[in-house]
């Protein structure tokens, strides 16, 4: 069961605004992820019931789009932009350095849940390529050294982002 709290009230409000229409599923998933950080089974079940959609349909949609996360991300999140411009500017080398230095794989998190490493297909800041996002900060014209140092700082700083 989904706990009664502000976050649930927020989703309820948005679903009501959309008249519980099937077609609002993506909007609801966006709101749910905004509020909860990721989409777990309890949340998806609740959304499916509220919109009277088959659960398999809801999961099918949630997993089709790479923006939706079905697992909790780490405390700190590093996202590498793998758009063409960034690729041409060797963003891959920076990603490999992060993987190596922090013992983490793309798309995964460290076992202690401190750090997640994601890739995104283009954040649209191509003229500043290569771009790496550490927590909420975009590092443009990034280099291995700068990014690794920035991640280290974030991890040492502890605490939750935001």
């Amino acid at each position, binding site marked *: 069961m989904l706990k009664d709290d502000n976050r649930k009230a927020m989703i309820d409000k948005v679903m009501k605004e959309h008249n519980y229409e099937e077609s609002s599923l*993506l909007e609801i998933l966006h709101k749910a992820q905004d509020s909860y950080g990721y989409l777990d089974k309890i949340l998806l079940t609740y959304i499916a019931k509220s919109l009277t959609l088959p659960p398999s349909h809801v999961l099918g949609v949630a997993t*089709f789009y790479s*923006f939706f996360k079905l697992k909790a991300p780490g405390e700190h999140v590093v996202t590498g932009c793998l758009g063409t*411009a960034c690729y041409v500017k060797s963003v891959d080398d920076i990603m490999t350095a992060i993987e190596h230095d922090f013992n983490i794989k793309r798309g995964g998190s460290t076992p202690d849940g401190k750090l997640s490493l994601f890739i*995104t297909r283009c954040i649209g800041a191509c003229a500043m390529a290569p771009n790496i996002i550490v927590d909420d900060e975009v590092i443009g014209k990034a280099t291995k050294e700068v990014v690794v140092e920035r991640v280290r700082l974030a991890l040492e700083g502890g605490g939750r982002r935001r």
Partner: protein
Amino acid sequence: MKLADLQKIAEHEVDFQRAYKHRINVCCSSGCVPFGALKVLKAFEDAVKEFSVEKDCKVAKTGCVGTCSVGPAVIIEPGDYLYQSVTPERVRETVRDHIVLGLPVKDMLYHSEDFFKKQHRLVLRNAGKIDPSRIEDYIAMGGYSAIVKCLATMTPQGVIYEVTRSGLRGRGGAGFPTGQKWSLVARSHSTPKYIVANLDEGDPGVFANRTLAEADPHAILEGMLIAAYAVGAEKGYIYIRAEYPLAIQTLQKAIVQARAMTLLGDSVLETPFKFDLELRFGAGAFVAGEETAILASVEGRRAMPRPRPPYPANSGLWGKPTLIQNVETLANIPVIIQNGGEWFSKVGTTKCSGTKCFSLTGQINNPGLIEVPMGITLREVVFEIGGGIQNNRPFKAVLVGGPSGGCLPEALLDLPIDYDSLTKVGAIMGSGGIVVIDDQSCMVDTAKFFTDFCVEESCGKCVPCRAGLVKVQEIFNRITTGDGKVEDIAALDKAGNYIKEASLCGLGQTAPNPVLTTLRYFRDEYLEHIVDKKCRAGKCFRNLVKEEEVEDQ
């Protein structure tokens, strides 16, 4: 608000702005904000107060001017002085010298004059000049006068006639004639009708649509209004990438303002014409840019393309006639209505009128967002606007059209940029990405990069795209790790052509383009990889290098 009121607002706003001697436009788009644009904005606001010039000097938060690699960018009018890489520390000095003393700070001015010389800004007419968060700014530039003209003096058929006459073709990639598309939807009898504006810029390396939305959101809204009037639609959706928070905010604000002025709603400008719109958010699926997939996504389903017919013009959203148009196409519409289709048809080439926005990136001196007339050559774009290759390295190729585009060699640099010329050489216009690469990039590796992208983004519905691309990817993995065979070249060619011909949607049909064009123009690099196990750019065979290193130790 009535039709005539708009004119008054425009006049009032122009007078209001004329009261200022200077206007300082600080670019606060997604390209500049991460690099301190908001701090620069604040610094300018403080500095004009410090020097007591706030009555002469309007500090405005604007959209992108295009020089995204040297942000934050600031323009000081009059004279259009463009400052690059502005830091809050140097703002005080800039205001003192430029505004108070009248001496522009030379060492901060943008480094290249060529960047703007060959550009022709129709779509980006207001980008960097107006404050996108103020509808009055847009109106003062003549904004919404085109919809007024339509409502007051033109029939829907008349609007379609002008658009057809303009020769405008869809800017989303395929280049379908816009006027023709509009008449198809207009002729459909079923109601209600819908409009979907495509702002799901999925091409990695392209940011033109985002920039447009951030810099001039009302141009998109006005384009949609005119389209809606022409085809008889009463509801619109802007389908935008969730990864574009600033563009979303800007559009949301624009919609609220437009509603407040009755430009949207049950009775647009107190006429019987009714139109309103909503934003819908994409969620990271390249295929959602395909026109039947975008419909599925707006309806809240998996963005899987479906076979056509039926075409969306007859059966789109919820089975109703739907006009799907890229936002860049829509932003052209007000200009066409204001100046007439005939005027527009004279910009660009005879077969391809108008301009095209490109995100110009890669190993180039002046990356950024540009808008050029159709028919300009790639050489002009790369070497004049783009300022040539960084560090004077040799040019190798230009990738036109994103992951479904083509990799074109030096020999094709004099090719004019238009839909047909690009298709002929195996590339596509796509949504407007030009990535320039130098000798540090490997063409086999580049084709592999795009294949990897398409494998990730394939929706999985049809066999050629889902399973075929994986096989192509495997062949690339072999070639780039030293296990390539000479037969692989023929296998890539065969599989590529099959995927191109047999796939269900545009994604699959164009996915092999990078492979096929590199095979066509850079075959020697493939042979080098396969026969000599050598990569001249040093990108491939990294596994082998590592093994050697291990042996050395």
